[in-house]
């Protein structure tokens, strides 16, 4: 295959970056989820629904 080096570099860097970023986000999520009590970790409300006394 021609330009194989470029193909590997391009796809490799892209997929590699996504993998690293995804792992870092998931890890941050794990650390935070551990620290925040379970009852506060539900974000399933619609925008503005929990405006209340926050923000």
């Amino acid at each position, binding site marked *: 295959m021609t330009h194989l080096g*470029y*193909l590997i570099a391009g796809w490799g860097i892209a997929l590699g970056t996504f993998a690293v970023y*995804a792992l870092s986000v998931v890890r941050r999520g794990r650390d935070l989820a551990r620290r925040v009590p379970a009852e506060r*970790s539900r974000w*399933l409300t619609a925008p503005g629904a929990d405006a209340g006394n926050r923000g």
Partner: protein
Amino acid sequence: MTETMATNGTTTGSRGSRVLGAATLLGLATLLLFAFGLTEADIRLHPTTGEEIGQFDAVRLLYLHVPLAVFTYVAFVLCAFASAGYLIRRTPWFDTMAHAAAEVGTVFCGLVLVTGSIWGRPVWNTWWEWGDVRLMTTLVLFLMFTGYLALRRATVDPRAAARRGAVVALVAVLDLPLVNRSVEWWENRTLHQKSTLGELKIQDLTLFTLMLGFLVFGLVLAWLLLHRFRVGWLEREDAEHGIAADIAERRAAIDEGDVDAAVGEGT
């Protein structure tokens, strides 16, 4: 939606996000199969000399680069709307979404520039080209949003960070047409003139693979946004929880008559 999106308390994953993630990985595998195995390289014959010209196998990078570019703009437009929403409604949902969209969008944007440059080297014979409109606009966009992320990281007060971030994001997005227009007028040259010697023929399979690329990277964006949004939300909760815990601690100290602990001294 509430059931599938609820967490199990130890991770930002949920049943919904796991399904999404699995679909994304499956899609990526399929895309790679199509991009490398089933589609053909771009080889055409020069009209007069008869030699083989075209992008050859470098075209396989476009199935990556073009979807990335499209979703970069999707992410930043989302950030702009969320920023506007925050300035109007001032709810944390908008702010968290804006920050998440900006961060994921910046990752996409950086990759657009890198993959574009890698594609450009064999095809245009250069790593970079000044004066190409899309290249310059994307570069300025990237710089503007790295600035946004730096500002948010540097601002300690969350409400100030949200407000300032929203303004920066909106100014960036509004400035972009001006950047685009000024580069377009400037020299009025783009590398697309160089490639008119042979337009990339988009036949059925190439088009399909490109569409597949759009689908797959749309899934990637959605998955990353979902998790990054949840992380942002947890960060807010964590900060508030930390403050609430401090307050509870001081109150308890007052009840016990421990004045020093109540005013935070002597710890």
